[in-house]
């Protein structure tokens, strides 16, 4: 397929018409550049929002106790709904299809953590063993809380990376097995975790919930129950409804009271957001392809002029033995070369700009790591070659129809 002569001929005609070729190529390069920038920004937006979903399984459901806002069965609004371990059991028993489940209670003020001469203020989060998976924590050393810890009221603790850094100073120091002082109570470190979420999430330490209830509050209070299910958005919504009804009956509040408990079905929100991004991506492709079509029409137009200008040359070639096919491929390849090369420049420029933006732009909640991934680059390249061929198609067919006797007629 590689035909040096043909390419030399194409290059010689391009060299003769530098400005024209440049202007034509520019429109295509611009089209691809815009497509890459748009797609990259779309991804940036999506990444930003995805970031918000991080630090927790996307199929998680979170139920937090609140304060009633509606009068119900003669009871005044403004009552606090108090969750206890019984509510954990109630949620667990009320529906089928729960995969992982954990409760949690708030210890609102930060506590002083100390190890030898190092100390700092961090948050204690009492949880069940499943919580590590629901929150999608990455345990990088040791292990997470397990059932034995819970049953035996062990004073064990899983600390965030930042806590380890603060208390143990040297990153290669072994923390596992060491006792740290938490609000005056010694806890043994059994694990260190990393959380994809915000920095606050790294400043946490997880302890078995029963231990914490004993040590810190002295009762069986909890504030939140979270669980995951693999049954899909619709089922999880139905589950949430059943649970809400049972909790409402148990705590005597209006099931329609939005404030009594706050329930968040992450899967639902996640799905809605992803659908939105799919729509945005489609929109971007439509705009991008529209821009490229404008470029393609430009190239096609120029190639028609090229064919017109080269009528005589093509006539000569045909007279001395060029087949229609060789004429078609000559024009087609020139068109593909111009669009391909120009498009590639646009592609590289677009990716380059995105790289710079993602490197130097301050992090934001809604925009992170704009990028054109490999898949986009490949699809854009395929799009380019097709556009080039499309742009050259009509002109090359016109060139193939040139009759030598007409082309060679002396003026």
């Amino acid at each position, binding site marked *: 397929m590689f035909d040096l002569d043909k390419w030399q001929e194409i290059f010689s005609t391009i060299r003769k018409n530098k400005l024209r070729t440049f202007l034509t190529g520019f429109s295509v390069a611009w089209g691809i550049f815009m497509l890459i920038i748009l797609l990259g920004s779309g991804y940036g937006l999506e990444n930003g929002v995805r970031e918000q979903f991080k630090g927790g399984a996307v199929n998680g459901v979170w139920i937090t106790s609140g304060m009633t806002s509606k009068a119900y069965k003669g009871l005044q609004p403004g009552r606090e709904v108090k969750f206890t371990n019984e509510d954990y059991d109630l949620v667990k028993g009320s529906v089928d299809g729960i995969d992982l489940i954990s409760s949690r209670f708030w210890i609102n003020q930060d506590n002083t953590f100390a190890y030898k001469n190092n100390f700092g203020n961090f948050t204690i989060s009492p949880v069940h063993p499943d919580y590590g998976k629901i929150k999608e924590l990455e345990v990088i050393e040791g292990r997470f809380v397990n059932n034995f810890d819970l049953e035996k009221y062990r004073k064990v603790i899983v600390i965030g990376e930042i806590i380890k850094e603060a208390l143990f100073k040297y990153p290669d120091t072994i923390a596992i097995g060491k006792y740290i002082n938490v609000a005056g109570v010694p806890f043994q470190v059994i694990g260190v975790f990393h959380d994809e979420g915000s920095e606050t999430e790294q400043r946490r330490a997880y302890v078995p919930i029963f231990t914490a209830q004993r040590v810190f509050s002295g009762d069986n209070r909890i504030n939140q129950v979270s669980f995951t299910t693999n049954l899909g958005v619709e089922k999880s919504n139905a589950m949430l409804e059943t649970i809400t009804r049972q909790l409402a009956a148990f705590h005597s509040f209006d099931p329609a009271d939005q404030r009594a408990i706050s329930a968040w079905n992450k899967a639902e929100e996640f799905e809605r957001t992803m659908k939105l991004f799919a729509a945005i991506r489609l929109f971007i492709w439509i705009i991008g392809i529209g821009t490229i079509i404008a470029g393609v029409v430009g190239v096609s137009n120029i190639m028609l002029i090229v064919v017109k200008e080269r009528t005589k040359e093509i006539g000569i*070639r045909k007279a001395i033995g060029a087949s229609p096919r060789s004429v078609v491929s000559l024009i087609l390849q020139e068109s593909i070369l111009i669009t391909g090369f120009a498009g590639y420049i646009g592609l590289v420029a677009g990716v380059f700009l995105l790289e710079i933006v993602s490197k130097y732009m301050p992090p934001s909640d809604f925009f992170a790591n704009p990028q054109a991934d490999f898949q986009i680059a490949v699809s854009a390249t395929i799009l380019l070659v097709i556009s080039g061929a499309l742009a050259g198609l009509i002109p090359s067919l016109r060139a193939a129809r040139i009759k030598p006797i007409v082309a060679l007629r002396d003026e």
Partner: protein
Amino acid sequence: MIELQGIHKSYDVGSNKLHVLKGIDLTIEEGELVSIMGSSGSGKSTLLNILGILDTYDQGEYHLSGKHIKNLNETKAAWYRNQMIGFVFQSFNLIPFKNAMENVALPLYYQKVSRKRRNKIALEYLDRMGIKEWAEHTPNELSGGQKQRVAIARSMISKPKVILADEPTGALDSTTSFEVMNLFKEINSEGITIIIVTHEKDISERTNRVIHLKDGYIENITVNSPEMNIANV
């Protein structure tokens, strides 16, 4: 070599038909040097185009070197032109952005001869035309006579059966015309059939036979005596 029997050709001009060739019977033997004369509109260019497989004919039979030339598709016609026919034009029809050597080598490109080899062959032909030192020059750096030599070299490089020349001296001064005719005679002496369309009497006088066309018919054919040829040299 060339056999034409009852060739008719007409063109559509608006709603009318323009009958250009009205039954041409002609035989040209291998190795002949023939000229076709006629005033404009006599059909000589049309005849040349049909002979060169650049145009089709409506009726009759055309055999070139034993092959029946009829209803060829474009690819096949291009192949026959490439293999059997060399063209020389009044306005040279060289490709302006290619140098002399590349222009001469072009027919071999369509025969898929490698670049190196066809350029070497092209140089040999330019040498025979006496313009080897101009091989690297583009056509606009050459004089009319030099351009026509390049064109003749190009027409010969594929070793055609017949060279068709359409007013080859029309754009040249008389001295250069004379030199070009000498070249044609030299090539013809190697056995290649040459057909020249011209309206210059002193050109046609130097060919073996002159075919006079008038209004689409062959008016008459005159045979030039060899003496006359010699006298003119």
